[in-house]
C-alpha cells in the first residue's frame, strides 16, 4: 500500500526481531509514521493539522476521563461537582479548562484541516473515502461537543439541550415523540443528563475508531500535496521520520503555545458567562447562542423564517444538516481534473471571494441576536453557501481552464527533476 521505494523495517536487535515475528507492532509504526512511510516532500504547514487534530482528540480523551472521575451526572449535584472540580480537586481547574478550551481548539484545528481539504481539493479521487470518513468524524465531533456542553448543567447547557433536541421536533409525524424519547422526558432533566454523559463518554472512542479508518484510508494513496500532482518517483518523497515528525513536532509546539495561552490567561474567553448560572427550567437567558464553533450552522438554522410548502422550522433544520451533508457529495460535485486551488484560477476566485467571506458572514450572524439585519444577511449568505457547492462548483470545475501543472512535485520544488538527482542519490544509496 505504500510506494515501492518505501524502506523496509529491518530490526537488528534480537528482541525486536522476536517482536516482529510474533506481533509486528514496531513494523506497523515504522510503516505508518516512521522512515518506512514516504510522504510528498512539498507539504506545507497546512498538512500539520491532521496530526494536531489527533493530538487534541487524545488530549480531550485524557482530560475527559479525569473529569469523569470527579463529575456526577445528576441534576441535583452536576453543577456543584463542576465547581468541586474547580475548587477542591487537585489540578481540577487545569483539567477542566484544558478540556473546555481543548474542545474549541479541536474545532479550530479541524476547521483548518477541512479548509485545507476544500482549497486543495483533497477529497478528489483516489481520496474520496478519506474525505467521507472525515465528514463523518466532524458530525460525530459536533454531537459529542454538544452533549459535553450540557454536562455542567448551567443555563446555556440546559437551554442548548432544549433547543438542539427541539430540532428533532421539526421532523413531520415522528418529531415530537422522537424528542420526548431522546430526552426521556418532556424537557431536559435527569434522564437526559445521564444519557448525555454516557454518550459523551462513548462517542470520543467512536471518533477514535473513525480516525483510525481515516488514517488507514489515507495511507493507501498517501497524502496529497500543495501542487495536487501525484507522487511519481522517489525524488518526490521524503521519509515521514525524521522529516515530518520534526515538522509536525514544531507545529505541535506552536499550537500548544497558543492553546495554553488560552488555558492559562483566557480560560473563559470562548465560553458564555451564563453557563456559570445553574440550570433554571423556568427562565431562558436573553441571548442564547451555541458555542462559537456552531455559529455558521446556527445562522443557517435561523435563516428560515417563512413557511414554503414545508414549515419554516423544518426548512431550517433540513438546511442546517444539509450544509454539512453537502460535503459528502463534494468529490462528485467538483468535476475538475486538477486538484490544487493554486492551478485553478476561476475556482480560486470563487473560493476566496465567495465561499470564505460567506462562511465568515454566517459565522458572525450565528453569534448575533436573531433580529434584522442579521436575519436577512444570514438568508443571503445561506443561499450563496448552497449555490457555491451545488451550482458554482460544478459549473466552474467544468468550464475553467486550469493553469499548467508542474510535471512532478520535484519540478515544482526545485525547478527541474535533474536538479533533484544529485541530492537524492545519497539517501537512496543509504
Amino acid at each position: 500500500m505504500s510506494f515501492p521505494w518505501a524502506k523496509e523495517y529491518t530490526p537488528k536487535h534480537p528482541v525486536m526481531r522476536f517482536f516482529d515475528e510474533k506481533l509486528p507492532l514496531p513494523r506497523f509504526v515504522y510503516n505508518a509514521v516512521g522512515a518506512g512511510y514516504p510522504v510528498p516532500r512539498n507539504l506545507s504547514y497546512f498538512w500539520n493539522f491532521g496530526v494536531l487534530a489527533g493530538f487534541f482528540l487524545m488530549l480531550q480523551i485524557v482530560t475527559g476521563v479525569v473529569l469523569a472521575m470527579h463529575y456526577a451526572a445528576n441534576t441535583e449535584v452536576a453543577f456543584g461537582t463542576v465547581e468541586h472540580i474547580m475548587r477542591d480537586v487537585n489540578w481540577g481547574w487545569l483539567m477542566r479548562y484544558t478540556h473546555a478550551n481543548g474542545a474549541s481548539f479541536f474545532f479550530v484545528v479541524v476547521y483548518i484541516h477541512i479548509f485545507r481539504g476544500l482549497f486543495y481539493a483533497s477529497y478528489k479521487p483516489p481520496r474520496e473515502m478519506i474525505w467521507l470518513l472525515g465528514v463523518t468524524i466532524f458530525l460525530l465531533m459536533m454531537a459529542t461537543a454538544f452533549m459535553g456542553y450540557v454536562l455542567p448543567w448551567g443555563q446555556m447547557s440546559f437551554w442548548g439541550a432544549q433547543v438542539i433536541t427541539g430540532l428533532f421536533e421539526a421532523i413531520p409525524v415522528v418529531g415530537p415523540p422522537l424528542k420526548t424519547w431522546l430526552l426521556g422526558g418532556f424537557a431536559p432533566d435527569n434522564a437526559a443528563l445521564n444519557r448525555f454523559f454516557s454518550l459523551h463518554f462513548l462517542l470520543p472512542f467512536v471518533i477514535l475508531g473513525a480516525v483510525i479508518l481515516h488514517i488507514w484510508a489515507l495511507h493507501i494513496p498517501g497524502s496529497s500535496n500543495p501542487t495536487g500532482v501525484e507522487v511519481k518517483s522517489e525524488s518526490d518523497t521524503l521519509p515521514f521520520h525524521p522529516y515530518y515528525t520534526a515538522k509536525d513536532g514544531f507545529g505541535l509546539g506552536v499550537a500548544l503555545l497558543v492553546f495554553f495561552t488560552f488555558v492559562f490567561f483566557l480560560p473563559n474567553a470562548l465560553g458564555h458567562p451564563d453557563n456559570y448560572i445553574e440550570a433554571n427550567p423556568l427562565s431562558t437567558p436573553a441571548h442564547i447562542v451555541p458555542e462559537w464553533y456552531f455559529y455558521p450552522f446556527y445562522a443557517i438554522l435561523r435563516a428560515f423564517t417563512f413557511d414554503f410548502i414545508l414549515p419554516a422550522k423544518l426548512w431550517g433544520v433540513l438546511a442546517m444538516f444539509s450544509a454539512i451533508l453537502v460535503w459528502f457529495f463534494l468529490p462528485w460535485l467538483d468535476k475538475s481534473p486538477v486538484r490544487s486551488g493554486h492551478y485553478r484560477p476561476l475556482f480560486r476566485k470563487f473560493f476566496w471571494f465567495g465561499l470564505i467571506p460567506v462562511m465568515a458572514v454566517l459565522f458572525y450572524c450565528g453569534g448575533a441576536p436573531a433580529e434584522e439585519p442579521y436575519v436577512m444577511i444570514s438568508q443571503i449568505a445561506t443561499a450563496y453557501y448552497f449555490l457555491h457547492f451545488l451550482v458554482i462548483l460544478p459549473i466552474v470545475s467544468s468550464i475553467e481552464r486550469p493553469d499548467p501543472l508542474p510535471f512532478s512535485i520535484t519540478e515544482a520544488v526545485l525547478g527541474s527533476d535533474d536538479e533533484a538527482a544529485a541530492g537524492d542519490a545519497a539517501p537512496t544509496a543509504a
Partner: protein
Amino acid sequence: MASTTANADATPVNTDGVEGEDGVRRRDFINIAAVSAAGVGGLVTLLPLVSQMAPSKDVLAESTTELDISSLEAGQSIKAVFRKQPVFVRHLTQAEIDAANAVDISSLRDPETLEERTKAGHHNLLLVMGVCTHLGCVPLGAAEGENKGEFGGYFCPCHGSHYDTAARIRKGPAPANLVVPDYEFTSDTTIVIG
C-alpha cells in the same frame, strides 16, 4: 535516542550537517535538545494527572472529628466517624484495665502497654480506629451484645482476629494492634481526633 540514529541515517550530508571539530553535528545537538525539552515537558504533565486522584481539598477538610464523652459510663462504648471510618471509644472498667495490664508485653505480636495506647490522666479511656489491621473490616465488640472475642476486647468476624481489652492483637491473622489515631483532650470531656 532512536530518533537521533535514524536522523543520522536518513540525512544526506549538507551544510546543516557540518561536523564540528569534535565530530558532533549541529543538527544532532538541536535534535537532542528539542526531544529532551519535549520529554521533560511530557513528564511534567504526569504530575497533575497523577495528583488529581489524591484526596481533594474537601476530603482533607473533613480530617478532624470532635467528640463529647461526658455521658460515657464505665463499661460503655461509643462509635464515631473519623475520615469516613469508624472510631471506637471505650470507657474501660477496672477489670478490663487489670486484664490488659496483666499481660506479659513480650508475648504480644505488637508489644504496647495500655498506658502507651491512652492519654495521661485518661488511661481508662481507649480510643482506637474501628478498622481491623488485617484487611480493613469493622471489628465487633463496641456495641452491647456483640462478640468481644476470646480476650474480651474486639473480634473481627471477617477473618477471625481477636483483640484484647487494650485493643491489641492477640490471635488471628491481623499483623498489628487496632490503630490509635492522633487525638487530644481539649477539655476533660471533649476529644478532637485528627
